[in-house]
Structures are given as C-alpha cells and as structure tokens.
C-alpha cells in the first residue's frame, strides 16, 4: 500500500511533500470548493455592513432620511449579520472538517507504514520522534490546511474587496491610510515566527520538568537510599529557572505582537483623522465616508496580521509535511521481492553458512563467520555479555536481513522466503519481555487470537504461572499496566514465553528468557521447553548454564565468533570459558573463600 516515490533528484523534498496531500485535496474537493464559496459569502456580507452604516449616516447628515428609513437600514444590518452567521457555519464545518479528514488520513497512512518498517529503521528513530510526527507535525499540517487555508483566502478576498471600497471613496486617502499596514504584516511575520520557536523551547523545558519529576518519583527508593534529596531539588530548581527564562522570552514577544497590531492600526487611524479630517473639512469627502473609512481600516487590520501569520503557518506545515514524507518514503530492508520459495510445513533443519553481520551503528556485537546446522531439539547458546548471542537470535528471528553468508531453512535461502510465511514458522521471546497493556489472556494469546481460554491456561500452567495469575483479582482478564496488575520481571518473562510457546511454531527462540525466574520454577519451565523441542527447533540463550545442560547441542560465542560446539560434557572438556563458569555456578564445595 505504500507509494514508492521515485527519488528523482530534480524535485525538492518539499515539493515531494506536497505530493502527499494533493490526492487528499482531490478526494475532498467538493467540500473545499463549497467551503470557499461560503467564505466568499461571509466576506461579502461583512463588507456590506459598513456600506449600510455609511448610507444611514450620510442620510442623517443630509437630512434626507426618515425614521422609517433608519429602521430599514437597521433591519438590513441584522439580515447581513444573519448571512454572516450562516455562511460562517458552513465554511467552518466544511474547511475545518476537511483539515481533520486530512489529518486522519495521513495519520492512518503513517501508522500503517510504520508497521511495515524493520528494526534498522527503529534503531535510527526514537519512539518519541515518531510520536512527534503523529502529534506535533501532523497538528501543524492540519492547522495549515484548516485555519491557514481559510485565513489565506479570507485575507486575500478581504484585502482586495476592502481596498476596492476604500479606493472608491477616495484613492489618495486609501494610499495614505494604508501605508503603515505592510509594516504590520512584516512585523507579524517576524514576531510570530520567533514566538513559535521560543514557544517550542518553553514546551521542551516543560517536558523536561515533567520528565524529571517522573523519573525522580519512579526512582524515589534510590533517591532516598543515596540521600540525593538536596541534589535533586537543586536540579529541579535549575530546570524551573530555565523554564522561567524561556517563558519570559515568549512573554516579551507576546507583549509586542498583540500591541503592535494596535499600534499600527492606530497609526493608520491617526493618518485618517489628520488627512481625512482635513478632506472632510474641505468637503472633499462626506462625513459618512469618513466614518466608513475608519470601519474599513479596522477590517484590514486582521487580514494584514493574518498574512504574516499564515506565511509562518504554511512554512511550518510544509516542514512538518516533509518530515512525515521522509518517513513515508522509507523502505523496509526486509521485503518480499523475489521471494518465490515456499516454506514446507515441517522444518527439520536450519543451516548457517559463513554468516557475517554488523550493525550500522555501534548498538551491539556483530557476528563473524558462523557456520552450524540446527535440527529439531534444544540448541543452547552461551557466552559472556556482549558476545553476540542476541544478535544471532535477531538474525534467526529475521529482524534484520542476512547480508553476508546465508541462513538456509530446509535448504532454502531465508532471504527467498516470504516474510509472513517465515514469521508464521518462528515464535520468539525477546530478551526484554514486552507486554501490552491488555488482559493477561490477550497477551498470552497474542500470536494465536483464535486460542481458547483452555489452551491459554494450559500454556500458562506449563510455564508455571497459572497459579499466580489465578491469584490476581481478575484472573486471566486482569489488565496489565499502571491501572491494572503490576507484574514482576519473572512473571513478565513467563508470560512472554507462554505467548511464544502457544503458537506451537516449528522454530522457537528464547533469548535469555528465564533470567528472573527462580530455580524451582525454572526446572518446571525447562521440562515444558524440552517437550516442545522433541519435534521443533528450540534456540535458547542463557547466562546460567543449569537450564541448558540438557541441550542436544550447545554453542559458545565469544566476541561474535563461534568458539566451541558440542554437548554439555564435551564443552566441559574442551572449552575454558564454559568450564570456568560451570565451576563457578555449580560447585558447592569449591571456592571456599570466593564468597563475599
């Protein structure tokens, strides 16, 4: 569904960004068209009101008007006001509604697109950045497409029309009265541009304060234990003072921006009173013209400010749009192009051939020249922290594409298997047991939405968490998260494991999934995993050797290289690292002085 924009070098990113919203204008063109028509109606009615005022005052001055006539003028004004109200109702609904439809459509497109991107992308962008695209950036696009569009059209219509009326009354006076107004547009543009920048700084500092408050409260135990109260208060004070500074910088602009419009408008008024007053004294214009002129002048103040404001709004909207467009044009490194191979129902071998891998940044340990073959059964992966165990799991789970060397599934190159097919065949319990803020049942059944409660319970039983779940007030329907039950690290790991095992996928990857589970429970879980591995390939990493001792095959990774391969007793005999940690972890009689 994602458009793959041809990256022709001639088009600038901003123009490409416009290509994102043009289809939306096309989709909703009727709405936009009638919205603009309604806007014209509003402007017309608004312009006619001062004409009526002028007519009535001139009539009064010449004495040619009767009370009856005055009443008619009054009615006309009310009628026009009703027209304004009616048309305004329509444009607000049509055009502002359009901007919300546009916002909805882009947000949806963005979300669907994000779901297709691979891990390399998510390592480049933080969640906060992506959230900002959906909230702040999209909001500025929406503002530009809604209020911005309206203000621009309105300002142009009003300026032209008011100018015409004014010129009709007296061209010279018009020219003189308007001379300060371009200054207003300019000042507004400069000031509101500054305001926006400074205001984002205020918001940033505000969120820093919020974040500091949050992290302090969350780490309250540590703050108390380490007696950090004074330092934390001092840091908080510093942030607060920063906030004051930035807020003041905003206040200065605000203190200028709004009075400036009054200043310029009153400057114009002054010119009208001087020059127009003289003209009226010399009977060059009527007193009615004079008063209407003043009304028109005030009508121009808003469009002039709007021009400055809209210029900024469009600029910001476009910048935001191109930021969104940049993400939408990202392509996943994992794709189904040329994936013709089909995956057999039963998988009986995974072969790694001269596998090399390195991350683009410095996020983790790469892999060098790994070759090995996995068959159904438990495969244990051990090695010091940062030796590349998780990296190997990531590649087997196909979070990254294989670029050097190859992984063969039943002899078929992994890169040639459709992503969905392969994912269906792999269940994965990552190192960080991530759970969704949903019910426990939904979390366990995440990979199998069709699973019955019975199956879910049986799986929970197998990983030794059923009893604990039943202890929660809501049982399996308890929600996880701040408003629901808070789970311990071991509980999270077991639910994550149950989620993976419930899929009964032919390949199961468990990346350090039992580190927070106590010894008794661990034994129980290992029984379930060994049973699973009878017919399936199970890949498991662990810091502790005990659970892996029964593995059909064990591999030691050190610095991204495979340094030993074999069964438990073989490794004990031939690998120094393995032997050393085994002794450390098991020998109850040895190392008397080691403790403490």
């Amino acid at each position: 569904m994602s458009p793959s924009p041809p990256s022709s070098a001639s088009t600038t990113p901003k123009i490409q960004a416009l290509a994102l919203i043009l289809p939306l204008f096309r989709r909703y063109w009727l709405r936009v068209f009638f919205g603009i028509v309604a806007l014209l109606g509003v402007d017309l009615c608004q312009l006619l009101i001062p004409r009526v005022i002028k007519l009535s005052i001139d009539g009064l001055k010449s004495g040619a008007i009767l009370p009856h006539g005055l009443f008619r003028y009054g009615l006309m004004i009310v009628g026009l006001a009703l027209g304004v109200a009616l048309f305004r109702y329509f444009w607000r609904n049509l055009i502002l509604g359009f901007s919300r439809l546009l916002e909805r459509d882009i947000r949806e497109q963005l979300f669907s697109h994000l779901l297709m991107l691979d891990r390399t992308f998510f390592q480049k962008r933080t969640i906060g950045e992506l959230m900002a695209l959906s909230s702040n950036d999209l909001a500025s696009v929406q503002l530009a497409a809604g209020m911005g569009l309206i203000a621009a059209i309105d300002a142009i219509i009003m300026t032209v029309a008011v100018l015409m009326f004014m010129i009709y009354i007296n061209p010279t006076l018009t020219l003189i009265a308007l001379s300060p107004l371009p200054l207003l547009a300019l000042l507004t543009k400069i000031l509101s541009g500054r305001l926006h920048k400074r205001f984002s700084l205020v918001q940033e500092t505000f969120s820093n304060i919020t974040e500091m408050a949050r992290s302090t409260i969350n780490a309250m135990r540590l703050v108390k234990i380490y007696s950090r109260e004074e330092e934390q208060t001092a840091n908080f004070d510093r942030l607060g003072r920063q906030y004051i500074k930035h807020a003041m910088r905003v206040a200065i602009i605000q203190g200028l921006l709004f009075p400036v419009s009054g200043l310029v408008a009153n400057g114009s008024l002054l010119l009208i009173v001087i020059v127009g007053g003289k003209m009226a004294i010399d009977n060059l214009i009527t007193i009615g013209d004079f008063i209407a002129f003043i009304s028109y002048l005030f009508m121009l103040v808003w469009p002039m400010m709007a021009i400055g404001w809209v210029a900024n709004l469009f600029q910001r909207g476009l910048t935001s749009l191109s930021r969104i467009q940049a993400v939408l044009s990202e392509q996943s490194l994992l794709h189904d192009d040329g994936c013709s191979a089909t995956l057999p129902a039963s998988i009986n071998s995974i072969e790694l051939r001269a596998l090399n891998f390195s991350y683009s940044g410095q996020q983790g340990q790469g892999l060098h020249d790994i070759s090995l073959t996995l068959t159904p059964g438990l495969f244990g992966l051990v090695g010091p922290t940062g030796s590349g165990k998780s990296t190997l799991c990531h590649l087997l789970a196909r979070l990254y594409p294989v670029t050097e060397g190859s992984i063969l599934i039943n002899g078929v190159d992994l890169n040639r298997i459709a992503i969905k097919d392969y994912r269906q065949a792999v269940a994965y319990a990552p190192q960080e047991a991530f759970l969704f803020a949903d019910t426990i049942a939904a979390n366990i059944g995440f990979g199998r939405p069709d699973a019955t409660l019975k199956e879910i319970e049986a799986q929970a039983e197998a990983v030794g968490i059923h009893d604990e779940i039943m202890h929660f007030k809501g049982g399996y329907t308890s929600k996880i998260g701040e408003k629901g039950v808070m789970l311990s690290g071991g509980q999270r790991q077991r639910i994550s494991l149950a989620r993976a095992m419930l899929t009964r996928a032919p390949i199961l990857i468990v990346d350090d999934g039992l580190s927070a589970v106590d010894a008794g429970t661990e034994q129980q879980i290992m029984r379930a995993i060994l049973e699973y591995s009878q017919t399936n390939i199970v890949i498991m990493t662990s810091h502790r050797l005990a659970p892996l001792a029964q593995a059909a095959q064990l591999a030691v990774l050190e610095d991204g290289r495979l340094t030993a391969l074999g069964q438990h007793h073989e490794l004990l005999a031939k690998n120094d690292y393995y032997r050393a940690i085994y002794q450390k972890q098991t020998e109850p009689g040895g190392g008397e002085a080691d403790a403490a």
Partner: protein
Amino acid sequence: MQHNYGFFEEETLGDVKDAQLWRRILRYGRPHKRNIAFAIFLALTVIATGLALPHLTKVAIDQYITNDALARSERLLGLSHLTMTFLLMVVVGFVANFLQVTLLEWTSQNIMHDLRQRLFAKLLQQEMAFFNMTPTGKLVTRLSNDIQNMNEMFTSVIVTLFNDGVQFLAILVILCSINLRLALMMMALIPFIIINLIVFSRLARDAFRAIRTQLAMINSFLQESLAGISLIQHFLREDDAVLKFKRENQEYMRKNLRQIKLFSVFLPFIEILNSTAIALIIWYGGGQVLRAQMSFGELAAFIAYMRLFFKPMKEISEKYSIVQSAMASAERIFQLLDRDPAIPGGQRKNGAISGQISFTDIYFSYKEPEPVLAGLDLTIAAGETVAIVGTTGSGKTTIINLLERLYEPSRGRISLDGHDLRGFDLLWLRQQIGLVIQDVLLIPGSLRDNICFGAEVSEDRLREILVKAQLTEVVRQLPQGILTLIGEGGYELSTGQKQLLALARVLVRDPMILILDEATANIDSMTEMLVEKALRATVRSRTSILIAHRLSTIRGADRIIVLDRGRIAEEGTYQQLFDRGGLFRTLVEQQRLQAAK
C-alpha cells in the same frame, strides 16, 4: 502536545467561591506586592489610553471636522493638536501594555516556581508507602499541569478579569454619559450575551477535554505499538493493530468535528448580537440625531465603543472555566503540601558508629492482610558478615527497607548501636549504609560524576576503586574514558556495567554498613568472581549483609540466615546448615541438581 505517560486524571472543577482557598492562593503573591501594584497601575494606563482614542475621534468630528462655525485654519489647527495627543496616547498605551504583560509573567512565573519547589521538596520527604499508593502520573501532574493551571490563572485570568472588568465598567459609564437611553438599550443585550457565553464556554471545555483524552489514547496506543513493534510484526498482528488504530483515530476526528460544529454555532451568534446592537444604534440613535438630541460624533463614538463593549464580556466568560480548573488544581496542590510524611526523622547523628544492628519482634506488611515479616528477631554484631537467603517473597529485601527506614514496621523495634532507629536523622542514617541493589540511579553527567556522586575523591583513590569494582576495562573502552557522558542521551551502559558502577559508588562513600542485595545478579560469572575477590577485604572490615539467589556466592559469610514466611527458620554457617538437612539444604540441592543435569 503533552502525553501524560498514559495517565489521565478526571478533571474536576473547583469552587470559584471558596474564599479560604482564594486567600491561600493570594498569599503567595504577597512577596511580590510591589510588582503587582505596578502592574495594576499599568493596566489602568492601558485601559485609559484605549478608551481615550474613540473619545478623541469623537472630539475631532464634533469640534473640528463638522463644526462649520469655526474658521478653516482654526479647525485644522485644532485637529493637529488633537492628533498629537492621539499619538502620545497610542505610544503610552503600547509601552504600558508591553510592560504589563512582561511584568505579570515574571511575577507569576516566580510565584509558580516557588510553589513548585516547595511541592517537590515536600514530595521527597514522603515515605515509600505513599509512593506505592499513589500512581506516578498523578504526582507528576501536580508538579506539571496543576502548577501550569495556576500560572495560567495568575497571568491571563487575573489580568483579564481585572483589565476587562475595569474596561467594561468604564465603557458602560461612557456610554451612559453619551446617551443614557441608548446605553440602557444596549444593556438589555447583556444577559443574552452572558448566558450564551457561559453555556458555550462550558460546552467548549467539555468538547476540548474529550479531544484531549482521545488524543492521549491515540498517543498511548501509538507509543505501545511502537515499543512492541517487533512483536506485532513477528506475531503477524499488523492488520489488527491498524484496525484498532483506525478506530481510535476515527474517534478522535469525530470529537474534533463535534468541536468544530459547536464553535460554528456559537461564535457567529455573538456576531449577530454585535450587529443587532449596531442596528439598534442606527435606528434609535439615528432617530435621535434626526431630532437633534444627539450629535454625529456621539453616534460614531457609540458605534466605536460598542466594538470594545463586547470583547471584555467574551473574555471574562471564556476565562471562567480556566478559573474553575485552576481552583481544583490549587486544592490538589495544597492537599499535597499539607501532607506530613508518615516517617519523620529524628535528631541524633552519632560521630562514629560501630555498626551493631538489631531487629526485635518485627512485624510488617506492605498490604494488609499479607504479612511479610512476622515476629522477626535478628541481631548482627559490629563487623559481622551475614547472608540472608530464602525464597522469593520471604522478606529479604524488606529487612533492608526497614533498616533504611523506607518503611516503618507495624510492631517491634530496630536499633543501631543500641539506639532506636527512629531517633536518628534520616539523611545521616542513610549515609551510614552503603547499599548496592539491582537498580542503579544514573544522574546526567560523566561516568566520573556518577561514581563520585558529589564527593571529593583523589585520582589515586579513584583508580583504586575502579580496579576493585572491575571497571578499569570498561573505562578503557569508553570513547572519552571516565569523562564519557552516560545515561540518557549519552553512552548506554549495560546492566552489568551499571551494577559495577553502583559498587564503585558505595566504595567511594566507604560506609560502616555494607549491604549487597543481588548486587552481582547481572554480571557474568567471570567478572563476578573478580569482584568478589576484590571486595573481600572491604567486606571483612564492616558490618555486611549479603542477599543472593545464587547460594554459591554466600559461602564466605560468618552466618547465614534462612528466612521463611517472615521469620528466621534456620541460622548458622554454610556447613552447619547444610549438615542439618533443613530448608537450606533443600535450596542448595535444588540448585545443584539443576546444574548437574
């Protein structure tokens, strides 16, 4: 855009007539009396100049422009004099306006800063049980949004209420003085406007709140989906996620459209009233001009003042809802400020302690009725090394929590060097205990800052500590060595490295009591061995408490305590306990069995 970390608070409305609350809020302004008085003076200036301008226009029309009785030159001269005054007014108004806005912002920001600091300090004094009871989001809201609400009230509301109130009254007086009957007619419109505005502002606030809540829903859904994206992809749940997202997104749009509708009905209504007022002036006022009961200038001024007449009313009613929520915020803030911590500290600060600790008949539970400790008796001699073992939930960490006075036992007495723990100064007490736990608090700064934690440490000693904590190799690998920035935005340390850092931190403080609570759980076995060796001397010379899952790591303890169901089940040396064949032996064998398999 604010995300409240997934927490939404039901917005409540404060009682605007609560005089006691008002007095308390205004008390915070007292230190800034002078600024406030000056701001009031400036506000009056702004209003006066603003109102003078239409008056000057009126004078210009009546006395000079339409006054055929005067000679042309005199009329022009008068006009030019008038314009000078006009210009002066404009400039004075502008300057006063600017000064007022900035002065009030400055004053209000300082008041709020002061309040926020007090609140933060108060929060730090609260006991741990309080934080367990209260969701984090709620407390964060006190410090952020609630303070913000009050700030908004101080700057915009009090100002507008004052400015607009005065302006409104002034206009009313002027209108009455120009033409009483016409003015009374205008006043008949006021109830309509006020009712309309109050109803509108209430509906608008509800609509806005609904939008904000929905946006927070979208944001938390998005945040969660992005955090768990590899799982969604892996378990092929993309379609489902998109469907859910579409639903939330659609709902958000629907709420926005409702707000648009609301505004498009109510905003034009004011305009209609405004035009009706002008129509009335023309019809009725024009009639009076015809009957020569009113001048043109007066008529023009009346129209001009009417324009100013509607603005303050609009603003006042708009601000009403802000006042309501600010009052509610104030109430919540004061509630927290008034809360006395349940664990007050004492005065005692012994010069040097020996480190003898005793727990006598201790009962404790985090959540009634599940007791964690039930009748615990434990004495640890000065300089002794005691290991505490037991299954998950047997109360190991709770003992530490009580010793640190993070919680208070419901019964029993804890003493240090024979003095009741409650008599000690809290900060002093916690400084005597060096605790290494699994969680590590990183402060923004370099690795060195994080190790020293504010203490002065010589380079030699620091080097020695790095060696002991097995950090030398880690430091060597860092891009800027020990000066490398770590934590958020800086270099990301692994969990194991962070534990080594916590160890180094305790070594810097060199306390008399050392507690290692699963301190090496995330460190690989090789490093762990080295750390243990390096720490041996330090542990020997202090009162030490060790808590560890892996029983092999506690062999060197003088005494091992086995906790079961909140009291001591067995105690003795490793060998004694093993030989006795009780709970400890079962635990050891469980681990050994597993390993041997």
